[in-house]
Each structure stands twice: as C-alpha cells, then as structure tokens.
C-alpha cells in the first residue's frame, strides 16, 4: 500500500472492527452494551472500553429509501436505509440489502452482513462495512 492510499485509508482502517465485525463495548460498571463504541458509557457516564462482540441480529426500528443521494453514493441510489434495534439493546443506522419479495416493515427481523457501502475521497476509494438483511422465515 503506498503512502497516499494508506493515508486516505487510515480513517476507515481505524473503524475496521466496528465496520466488519460489529465490535462495540460493554460497560463494566452497569453492563450496558454499547454500539457504536464511545468509550464513555451513555447510561452511567463511567469509562467503558471493554470490547463486546454483537450478534448482528436485530429488528427494524424504522426504515426509508434514499432517492436524492449524496455524491459518493449516487451510483447506488435509490437504496433502503434503516435504524435497527440490535438484540443486545442499542440502535444502529445502516443500509438494508438482499430484500426479497416481502416488504420491509418496522419489526422485521434482520441480520448483519458485510457489503460495499460507497465510495470515499478524491479517488473514490471503496468502503466496506455492515448492512442488514431480512432473516427469512424458512432459515
């Protein structure tokens, strides 16, 4: 990796654990599970840096579709976006993917998968990370 590429990549590299594996934190003081990680527990205000691996399962808290995309996401538009309630508690925003014939609704069960999120920076570097897809009944 050359120097230029590594510079533009570093901001995504820092987030690799969260983006690829949904690694958040658990508060050692009040056991709140935290995603996205934030080092200070939003519930009790204490230090919370213990890593925690989320299961990746959850349900749709809200959803929409983006037609007017920002540059970097235009080639992907329109795309569905949701806020997902993870089964461990936190909400997280992400795109939905692999939607079948069933319409997505609030309450739809979903699971995390890794996909291309969009292009970033001057040279359009591709960024990968979590999206969520419906869990099919027959699985």
């Amino acid at each position, binding site marked *: 990796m050359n120097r230029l590429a590594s510079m533009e990549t570093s901001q995504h590299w820092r*987030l690799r654990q969260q983006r690829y594996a949904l690694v958040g934190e658990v508060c050692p003081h009040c056991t709140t599970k935290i995603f*996205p990680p*934030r080092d200070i527990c*939003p519930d009790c205000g204490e230090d919370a840096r213990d890593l925690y691996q989320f299961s990746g399962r959850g349900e749709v*808290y*809200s*959803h*929409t*579709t*983006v*037609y*007017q*995309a*920002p*540059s*970097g*996401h*235009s080639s*992907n*538009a329109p*795309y569905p*976006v*949701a*806020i997902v309630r993870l089964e461990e508690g*936190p*909400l*997280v*925003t*992400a*795109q939905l993917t692999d939607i079948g014939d069933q319409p997505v609704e*609030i309450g739809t069960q979903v699971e995390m998968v890794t996909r291309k*999120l*969009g292009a*970033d920076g001057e040279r359009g570097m591709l*960024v990968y*990370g979590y999206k969520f897809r419906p869990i099919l009944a027959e699985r």
Partner: protein
Amino acid sequence: MMPVGEHWDLSLRHLALDAISAARADSGGLRPQALYVANVLAPALSGQSHLGALLADFTGLRGVEASTIEASGASGGVAVRQAYLALTSGALDVAIVLGVEKITDKASGQVQAALATSTDSEYEAVHGVTPSTQAALLMQRYLYEHGAPKDSMAGFSMTAHQNAVTNPNAMFRKAIRHEQYARAPIISEPLNTFDVAPLGDGAAALVLARAAALPNRHDYPQVVIAGSAVSTSALAVHDRPNPLHLTAASQSAEAAMLQASLSLEDIGLFELHDSFSIFAALSLEAAGFAAPGHGWKLAQNGDISLAGKIPISTFGGSKARGDPGAATGIYQLAEATLQLQGRANENQVPNAAIAMTQCLGGSGATASTHILRRPN
C-alpha cells in the same frame, strides 16, 4: 432579510452586504463592534471559510471583531446567543449577527454531501444518510408508534404555505390544498416534497445592542431578548435514548423560559424549525405545547394558524419562505421581531407580545431557543 431563493447574480459576499446594509439602516445607523456569522456550507459549496474577516471587511465594518459560528441548522440561534452573551458581558455595546448561505451554485449530489456532514460521518453519513434520511426515519417511526395517519403532517405544510402567500420574501407564495399534499411525489418515504423545506440562498442580519447604547429616538419599538439558551443531545439519531423526544429542544426551551420567568401560556407565537414537517410536530411536543404523539393534531384544528392558540411559521417558515440553512435562526428572529413590532402586515399575529424562536441543527442534536418580548 433577503428573499430566500436562487440568487444567480449574487455571490455570498453580496448577499451578506445587502442583508447587513438593510439591518443597519433599520437600526437607525448603529455602528457594530462585532460581527457574528452563522454559516455551514460556504467551505464546501463556495470554497470559502474564514467568513468573519471576509464579510466584516466587505460590508464596511473593517477591523471589527468577527467570527463564524457553526452548529448545523441551529447556527443562527447559536450565533445570536453568543452575541447576546458578549453584549451582556459589557464588552460590546452593539453587535451584528448575520446568517448567510449560498447553496444554488452547486449540484444536488454535492449539496446533499455537504448537508450530510451534519450527521455522524462515521456511523450515519458513511451509510448514505443525509438530513432527509434522518427526518424520514423519524417520521416513519412517529407514524408507527403513535398510530398517526399517513397525512398527519399535511397541516404543517398547508399552514406554512398559507402564511407565505402574503410574505414578499417567501420562495413559494401559493397556498396548497390537501389533495396536493396527498398526491405529492415521495422524497424518502414517508416524506413527500411538501414535507421538505426547499433549500435556497439567503441572508438575514440582526443588530443587537445594549439598552444603554440605543438612541433616544428610534423608528420602531425595540424588542428585548428575555431568554436565550442552547442545548445539545447525541449527534447520531440512533445514539439518542428516545429518538422521537428532542431533548435538546426541550431543555433549551425550558432554560429560556426560566430565564424569562415565563410559562408556555405566555408565548404568543412560536417560530419553530420546520425544515422537515416532522420537526414541527416534534418541536411542539418537546416544548410542551402538545403531549408526545399529539403535536400533529395542532395542525389539524387551526391552533397553529395566525389567529390560533400557538401560531407557528408565521411568514411561511422554512417550508414556504424557503430554507436558508444556517441562516434560519436569523430569519426566525427577524420575523418574530416584525411581529412584536407590529410590522407584520397581513401576517400579523394579533396582540403579539412574546415570541419564542427555536432552531435545530442535525435533526435536533443542537437546539437554540430565544424568547423575545415587546417592551411594556
């Protein structure tokens, strides 16, 4: 105030010059010692930061203290707050607060990307989320959680458009009917075009002065800032304990009313943040004008119209006057001032004595509330 819209012929600095010249003339020629600029988009859309020095110099205020204040859509209110504190401290006698945005030079994708910087870049914008996306997600959840009908927000849009008909500065001066709302194209479901305020170029300026610095005679009754507050909550919508409760709006309204020693019943009009119609409902609820889930009903029964219990968007709001981004808070305060001075013409709220203005940044992550009072 400059009309909000597409000013193809005016650059950012000329918009600012016109707004500042008008405000200074209106103030009877007070000489400001400081300039506070509310702006978000100039670095991204005009390649221009450092607006304080640029605009102080260009508008004939060379040498004065100047800076840019940014808190997304709440920038205007936050800038007024900082000018207010500077005056209260005694360090200044006269300050000018300018809100300015130049938006129409760039294409939609760039504007959306610039707007998306007000969301959490690492956990929202990277997923293609923009402010409209946040608003759509909140509206979808609101309708679901409160079992509200699909057209719950129509009343906000219709009231705003009705009020804008007689506002010469408004971008859209045409009333709309319910059928138009119901048939409007979807922007990001359930948001339709009438739920979304149209962005436009805009500039508005306010002259603030300590009472001691005012001339003995002036053309209009001077309006007093009786309360001023700013609060924040989590930037990302998903990081808020209950995304449908705008805690920053609630806290800043409470703090401003406490400072002014007023309660909700005293408020004669409420210039709230209606960049998306859902925020009108959530703001009415956050301030306490309606219980959670009931804000939209105030738009059904005439409560929010000019002659209603709690008039909002009295000159059309961002929805119909046009949304000038960071300048919104300045337009709100300027419009509320016209109301309290009795200069609102056909838009006059009868007997307006106390006004509350509130602007939101980043879907409510920052909220700034001001209480204005007509003297005597």
